[in-house]
């Protein structure tokens, strides 16, 4: 393979990986933006999304097959179900602690993470589950590089979700309220905004996006596992920090940047793909040293 082939191949890999990171990073960033919580259970929400999607697919595949239509139906179902799960977790575990010291709610998030992945571990006997679909390996060839339709559709689906989210945030009144809550909750209350309701909507959207990423990862890799959310959650968190935590466009960019850098990192001399996690987290450390606010993050300024 020529250098260009390798470049193209890694570009596709990086874009896909980056898409998953971005979708999950969005949930981290949105939640951090409005309640300043690093929701460490978010990676497990992504994992839950994959499992709910697999269960849904096993039902609908009997009727419409396990092609794109079946996957789409399962994805919508999983996004709604896991979105509601996110709201439930927020209501039961986080809301009572909103006025407690920051550390209490952070530890609670780690607890929620433990509950989620241990529950799924027990239910699945800790085994890998095959995510079987009818999708083949057909695709387009560019030189020596073969790009499957599945890869193309997954990247496009991610783009569609992100564009919808952007429209929601910038155009609708709930979206505007979400941005306003991140700035000043009391001022929002004085505009008649039900702050708790907007927080619940934020959790719903963040969790639904992670669920979408979970199913896409299942479709792409072909198997899912109860622990799949752990490292991916940390990576998505890294992506959110790279983009500037709290910033929605930042999460999208951060995910893609991290995915592409990781793919590029596998090609560095003396560094094989087994070092890719080291590579990703080194980027995080370097960033925290040189630009702690991330690519689009703002430094907090106070003005009377």
């Amino acid at each position: 393979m020529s250098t260009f082939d390798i470049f193209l191949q890694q570009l596709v890999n990086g874009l896909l990986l980056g898409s998953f990171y971005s979708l999950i990073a969005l949930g981290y960033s949105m939640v951090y933006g409005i309640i300043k919580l690093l929701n460490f259970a978010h990676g497990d929400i992504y994992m839950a999304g994959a499992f709910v999607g697999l269960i849904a697919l096993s039902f609908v595949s009997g009727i419409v097959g396990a092609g794109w239509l079946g996957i789409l139906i399962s994805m919508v179902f999983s996004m709604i179900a896991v979105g509601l799960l996110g709201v439930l977790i927020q209501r039961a575990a986080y809301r009572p602690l909103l006025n407690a010291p920051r550390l209490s709610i952070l530890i609670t998030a780690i607890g929620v993470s433990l509950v989620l992945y241990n529950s799924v571990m027990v239910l699945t006997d800790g085994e890998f589950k095959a995510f079987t679909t009818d999708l083949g390996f057909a695709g387009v060839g560019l030189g020596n590089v073969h790009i499957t339709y599945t890869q193309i559709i997954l990247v496009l689906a991610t783009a569609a979700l992100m564009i919808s989210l952007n429209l929601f945030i910038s155009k609708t009144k709930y979206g505007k309220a979400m941005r306003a809550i991140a700035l000043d909750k009391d001022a929002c209350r004085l505009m008649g905004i039900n702050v708790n309701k907007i927080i619940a909507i934020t959790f719903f959207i963040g969790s639904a996006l992670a669920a979408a990423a979970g199913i896409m990862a299942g479709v792409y890799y072909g198997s899912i596992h109860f622990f799949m959310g752990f490292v991916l959650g940390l990576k998505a968190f890294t992506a959110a920090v790279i983009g500037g935590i709290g910033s929605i466009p930042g999460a999208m960019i951060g995910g893609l940047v991290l995915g592409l850098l990781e793919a590029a990192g596998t090609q560095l001399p003396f560094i094989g793909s087994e070092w890719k996690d080291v590579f990703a987290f080194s980027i995080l450390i370097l960033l925290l040293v040189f630009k702690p606010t991330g690519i689009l993050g703002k430094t907090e300024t106070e003005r009377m």
Partner: protein
Amino acid sequence: MSDVILRLQNLETHYGKIHALRGINLIVNEGQIVTILGSNGAGKSTALKTISGLVQASAGTVEFMGQDITKELPHNIVETGLIHVPEGRRIFRDLTVQENLDLGAYTLNDDVERRKRMHHVFDMFPILKERRKQDGGTLSGGEQQMLAIGRAMMVEPKLLLLDEPSMGLAPIIVQEIMKIIRTLNKEGTTILLVEQNAKMALKLADYGYVLETGELVMEGYGTELKEDESIVKAYLGA
């Protein structure tokens, strides 16, 4: 005699162990401008926060248009037409002027009506129309105060609580804000104004109260208070 729009009865508020309001009795009549004077820390802002629901009263009642709203949540109180413009303006700095105004009308589900009200705000504050695409944080202090008042006007409030609208503004801008408050009042909005700038407040107010360490120590018609020796001494700088 006009109708009572707001009535506080024996209102008490605690912040932890601090007894911030110690049994306040206050009446605002419809169509009036009423002011609460007092020095820093007297409890003026706390009184407004207790009325708008941001802070819960520990005893006593807040009655708005005949309804007991003491225990209501702030976002429900907004729907009754009682709007609080807090101290320091609190506009959304990273949102545009237009988005700030849109959020002011959050409780309104009628797009046509919202656009109509926004036109009204722009008529009153042409500078906001000019800057409607700019982030709120880029406005000057006076413009931010206009935006804060404009945002409240989007609800067409029956009663407007204004907390220190003159704070940190140049005297010429204070004059302008005064004019705006008078216009709003003429358009039918009742106003409860909290001010450290007693000179400005008494020029506007029909009736005034003086708050000292959580207690009302004096009340009277604006003209009476302006002539009262102790007020002149304490707040107008004799």
